[in-house]
C-alpha cells in the first residue's frame, strides 16, 4: 500500500525510532489460497501503547506523570500516516483501593485517548486496572476484557491474565480460547495481545502468568503466532518454541532488566535524559511473507 511505502521512507529519512526488530515467522506464503482470500490480506501497521499508569505519583521516577501520556498521544497523532488501529496493552491506570478514584482515573484516561485521531482503539486491562475488582470498573469504561477480532487477514486475540488477582487466565477463558482457535486454520496468522507475559519471564518479580503454559499449549499447533504484551515496562523479545513474544515500553517509568538487581524498583528519572526508557511502538504486519517489523519510538522531551 502506498501509505506504507511513504511511511517507511519517512521513517528512514527522519531516522526515527530505535532498532527495527523483524519477527520472521518461518511460514511460507500461502500461494494456494483463492484470490479473494489473498485480497483480504494486506500490509498494515498498528501502534502499541502500554502501561501509562494514569494516576501514578512519584516525581523521583517521573516528574511529568500527567504529561507523558498526552505527549505520546500527540506523537501518534503526528504520524504522517495513521495506523490502522491502536492497542493499549494494560495498566491504563495506576491501582487504587478507592473504587471511585479508580473510575475517576479510568475516565480521565479515556478522555485523554479520545484525543487520538484514530479512534479504532483496542483496550485491555492490566492488574493495576482490574485485579482489585476483577475488572468491574474497567468493564464499565472499556467493555470486555477478552475478545477477538480480525483485520486484513490477521486474527487478533486479546487475553485477560489480570482480572484474576492470582494472574490466571482461568478455565472459562481458556475454554473460550480453545473454541476460538478451533475455528482457525493451523497456518492462520494469529496475534495475541495480553498484559503479563504468557511465559515465565521472571516469576521472582511476578513477571509470569500462572496458567500461561496452558494458553501457549493451545496456541502451539498454530504455526504463525506472535504475542505482544506489556507489564514489564521495557522492550523484551523472547521465543517459546516457534511463538515469539514482544514486550513494550511503558509510558510512566522503566523497570530494570529481569533479575538484573535484587529488587524491581523503577528506574529513576534522569534529568539529563528525560523520558529515557519510555516509549511506544509501531508494528508493521507484512502479509507476504508473514512477518512483523517493530519500530520503537521514544517519548520526546
Amino acid at each position, binding site marked *: 500500500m502506498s501509505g506504507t511505502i511513504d511511511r517507511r521512507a519517512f521513517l528512514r529519512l527522519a531516522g526515527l525510532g530505535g532498532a527495527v526488530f523483524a519477527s520472521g515467522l518461518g511460514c511460507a506464503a500461502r500461494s494456494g489460497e483463492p484470490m479473494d482470500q489473498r485480497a483480504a490480506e494486506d500490509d498494515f501497521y498498528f501502534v502499541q501503547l502500554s502501561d501509562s499508569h494514569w494516576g501514578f505519583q512519584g516525581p523521583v521516577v517521573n516528574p511529568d506523570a500527567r504529561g507523558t501520556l498526552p505527549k505520546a498521544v500527540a506523537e501518534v497523532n503526528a504520524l504522517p500516516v495513521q495506523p490502522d488501529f491502536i492497542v493499549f496493552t494494560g495498566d491504563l491506570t495506576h*491501582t487504587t483501593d478507592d473504587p471511585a478514584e479508580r473510575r475517576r482515573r479510568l475516565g480521565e484516561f479515556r478522555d485523554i485517548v479520545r484525543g487520538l485521531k484514530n479512534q479504532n482503539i483496542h483496550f485491555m486491562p492490566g492488574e493495576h486496572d482490574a485485579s482489585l475488582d476483577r475488572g468491574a470498573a474497567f468493564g464499565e469504561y472499556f467493555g470486555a476484557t477478552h475478545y477477538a477480532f480480525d483485520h486484513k487477514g490477521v486474527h487478533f486475540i486479546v487475553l485477560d491474565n489480570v482480572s484474576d488477582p492470582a494472574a490466571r487466565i482461568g478455565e472459562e477463558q481458556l475454554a473460550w480460547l480453545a473454541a476460538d482457535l478451533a475455528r482457525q486454520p493451523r497456518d492462520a496468522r494469529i496475534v495475541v495481545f495480553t498484559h503479563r507475559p504468557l511465559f515465565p519471564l521472571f516469576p521472582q518479580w511476578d513477571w509470569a502468568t500462572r496458567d500461561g503454559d496452558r494458553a501457549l499449549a493451545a496456541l502451539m499447533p498454530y504455526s504463525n503466532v506472535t504475542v505482544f504484551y506489556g507489564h514489564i515496562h521495557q522492550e523484551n523479545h523472547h521465543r517459546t518454541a516457534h511463538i515469539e513474544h514482544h514486550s513494550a515500553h511503558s509510558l510512566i517509568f522503566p523497570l530494570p532488566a529481569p533479575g538484573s538487581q535484587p529488587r524491581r524498583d523503577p528506574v529513576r528519572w534522569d534529568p539529563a535524559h528525560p523520558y529515557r526508557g519510555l516509549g511506544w511502538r509501531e508494528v508493521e504486519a507484512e502479509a507476504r511473507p508473514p512477518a512483523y517489523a517493530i519500530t520503537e519510538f521514544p517519548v520526546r522531551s
Partner: protein
Amino acid sequence: MPSRRRFIAGAAAALAAGAAGLIAAAPAEPVIRVTARRFVFLPNVLTLKLGAPATLEFTSADVVMGFSLPDFNVRTDIIPGQVSRLRFTPDKAGTFTFLCDIFCGDGHEGMNGTLHVVA
C-alpha cells in the same frame, strides 16, 4: 508360658522405649511462622537448612495474599482467618527471592523477601 509372656511384654516395652529414644534424638523439624500484611511479610528474611524439611506457617493480617518461592516451584494462598502450611525440603543452597503472587494493591510489587538456604 508366664515367663514367655513376661519376655514378650518386656521386649515390647524395650522396643517402645527405643522408638521413643529415636524420636527424642531426631532434631525437631522447624516450623517458621510468617505473617503476611499489605505489603510486607513478617519476617521477610528466612533461613533454612539444605536438605532439612521445614514447614512454613502463614497467616494473613488483612487480605488474601500468596506466598511464592519460584526457585523451588512452591507456593500457597494465604487466606485471612486460616493457617496455610507449606512443607518442603530445600534441595539447593543459596539466596532466593520469595514474593506475594496475588495482587493486593499499591505496594504489591514490593511485597517480597529473601530465603537463605545454608549447608
